[in-house]
């Protein structure tokens, strides 16, 4: 755990001026932001005129605590409503805002989403593992709404360095039965007696622990290969721009 801790501290210290937060706080804040703020401010925080949350362009707030106070109390006389968040919850949203710029920042700009779709379907072979609106494999995360949940920089990082961040809901199970059969799948849930997975044949399976000779949960190693050297800069740009355009099944 010590190593994990150090990494967190370095990460937090490099991005945050006034508070330090764990990766989990940032993720919590991101969830709250998407559920409560993104409707008006946009996923990248720049949809309200004159305000760019990702880049600290704000009308009134100067410090983290100022922003947290506005999140809690709203701004009377404007469209910014109060929330029922307490201080520490509001600060997790601030934590997310402080990381947004870095997460949104990408070395790939000006991509063409239409060309990106071709790379997704063709050269990238993405559908071998991923699924969009019911098409493709369920082995990796469904990407139908990836544009709501991930910013361009995060998508780029996942493509070039898949191990950099694996969300807890994307952990994989890898086991060998006593008969020597290898089982892999997406880890869905676990209890004392069994592990619930979506296996490599898209079956929802509850694997009895007693049937296994060995098993691991891969929390730090993604089964996905890096596309760093497999795609050109332009192809990567196109692919990122396609993926961040995916905003869910209800959106045309």
């Amino acid at each position, binding site marked *: *755990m010590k190593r*994990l*801790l150090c990494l*967190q*501290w370095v990460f*937090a*210290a490099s991005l945050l001026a006034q*508070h*330090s*937060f*764990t990766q*989990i*706080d940032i*993720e919590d804040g991101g969830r709250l932001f998407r559920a409560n703020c993104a409707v008006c401010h946009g996923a990248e925080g720049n949809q309200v005129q004159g305000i760019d949350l990702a880049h600290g362009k704000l009308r009134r707030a100067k410090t983290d605590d100022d922003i947290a106070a506005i999140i809690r109390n709203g701004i009377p006389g404007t469209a910014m409503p109060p929330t029922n968040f*307490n*201080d*520490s919850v509001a600060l997790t949203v601030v934590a997310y805002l402080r990381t947004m710029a870095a997460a949104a920042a990408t070395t790939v700009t000006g991509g063409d989403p239409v060309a990106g779709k071709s790379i997704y379907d063709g050269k990238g072979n993405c559908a071998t593992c991923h699924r969009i609106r019911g098409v493709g494999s369920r082995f990796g995360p469904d990407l139908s709404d990836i544009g709501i949940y991930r910013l361009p920089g995060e998508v780029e990082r996942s493509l070039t360095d898949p191990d950099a961040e694996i*969300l*807890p*809901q994307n*952990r994989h199970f890898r086991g060998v039965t006593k008969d020597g059969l290898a089982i892999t799948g997406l*880890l*869905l*849930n*676990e*209890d*004392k007696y069994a592990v619930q997975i979506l296996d490599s044949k898209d079956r929802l399976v509850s694997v009895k622990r007693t049937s296994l000779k060995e098993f691991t*949960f891969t*929390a730090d190693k993604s089964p996905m290969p890096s596309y760093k050297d497999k795609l050109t800069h332009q192809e990567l740009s196109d692919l990122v721009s396609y993926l961040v355009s995916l905003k869910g099944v209800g959106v045309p």
Partner: protein
Amino acid sequence: MRSLCPLLALVAPLLHAQITFDRIVDANKEPQNWLTYSGTPLSQRHSLLTQINPANVKNLELQWVFQSQSVEKFEASPLVVDGILYTVQAPNDVVAMDAETGRIFWVSPYAPSLEARVCCGRVNRGLAILGDTLFMGTIDGHLLALDAKTGKGIWNVAVAKAEAGYALTLAPLVVKDKVIVGTAGGEYGIRGFLAAYDTKTGKEAWRFNAIPGPGEPGHETWAGDSWMHGGASVWVTGSYDPQLNLTYWGIGNPGPDWNSDDRNGANLYSDSVVALDADTGKLKWYFQFSPHDDFDYDSVQVPVLADMEWKGKQRRVMLWANRNGFYYVLDRATGEFLQGKQFAKATWTTGLDDGGHPVRVAEARPSREGTLVYPGVQGATNWFSPSWSPHTGLFYINTWENYASVFNKLPGDYVEGRRYTGGSPRSPVPSLRGTQVITRTEDEGYGVLRAFDPQTAVRKWEFKMADVTGSGVLTTASDLLFTGGREGYFWAIDARTGTELWRTNLGGPAESGPVTYSVNGRQYVAVCAGNSLFTFALRQ
């Protein structure tokens, strides 16, 4: 049926008799009943019933379910009195049921004031009984006396001010002609206390300030005015030793929880056990587990009273599994520290000194940038009951292992009725959050039931779970142990070996202490999980 006749003859004289205090003290003479929160005033959560045993426990089957009309955690431990089961539907509706069938005799609803403030759920942990009267604390700071036959009110007193964050969530404890309660509110800047009320009239008989006021010994352990809002709540039921006439209670965290800058000193009697004269409320002794705590390590656990041979001499001891990661053996007549043992990963301390006081790790303190500390804010164990079995000589503790929090320290002023915590702990890992799914590795925390021999401090066995647990532990004289977990399982375990003997999936977390009782010669085991109470007995 013939074989039941002698038993019926034995039980019959008791059937309509009132619950005298002598019956409560001698509760082990009528193991068919469950007369106090923890079974008896000694709080061992150990039953002398033996009909269900390791050989036949596999034949347990569901008898009935009570589905509460509440979405809160079901933390109440029921009472069973001569075939009637009494419990509380959260927050404060008392329910009387036929303990054999679950059929409801009456429901006594109570609508708490909208001013009620509770940190961690609108919960209630149960009732006390004396004579024909039930006693319940309410989340809006009242203590009620109700007719056990009808549920109608007898008296209702305001114990403390709900608007200021005082709430009663514990099951009261009856001692002689008094009913004793304390109040929750450690996250709201309360000044905690214990108070005893006359069971007949509701008139206050004595009060013990868990934070000494000016002129009282211990006041000097609080810098400046910090004593006025220093927390020291009481929210789990204490114990009583009839020979010593002492009542024992665990006291909660000092406040503000995670910012101790303004409360220099040991902050007595926060995070302590206090031994009080049951007639007067006068302090006989105290033992502080975590002086000047800034991790919210409430010492709000059940004081387990056991008599055992200790280094060649019979001794009246107290066993205490603390949220801070140590369990303790104390002499309960004097408070003398006899032994302490770390039972889960703890990084805030390097161990206990000869007097049982923890040696702090200087850098392990909440900070503005956040500090990772084991155990996390919920502790290595918490309020859920441990058990002591005189038959196995083992002390059973449901434990959170490899469990940490990142403790943030923030400024904050006291405002009546607002949270006053001085920061916030957060989880460094994704899934210890009470969600319905977990995808956690063992390094990220897990629940485990551990059995210790308190005389040798040797861990005899452990029973690991995938998720953590909020369940209490029940043992019986037939060497069975019952407990549950957040995975939804309820287990029967061999109390000597830790071997699983039976389990069922109740589909929701067990967040209270199981009990056992008997009606018409048939033994039942009851446990709450999710929003329901489940009862089991052997297949007939």
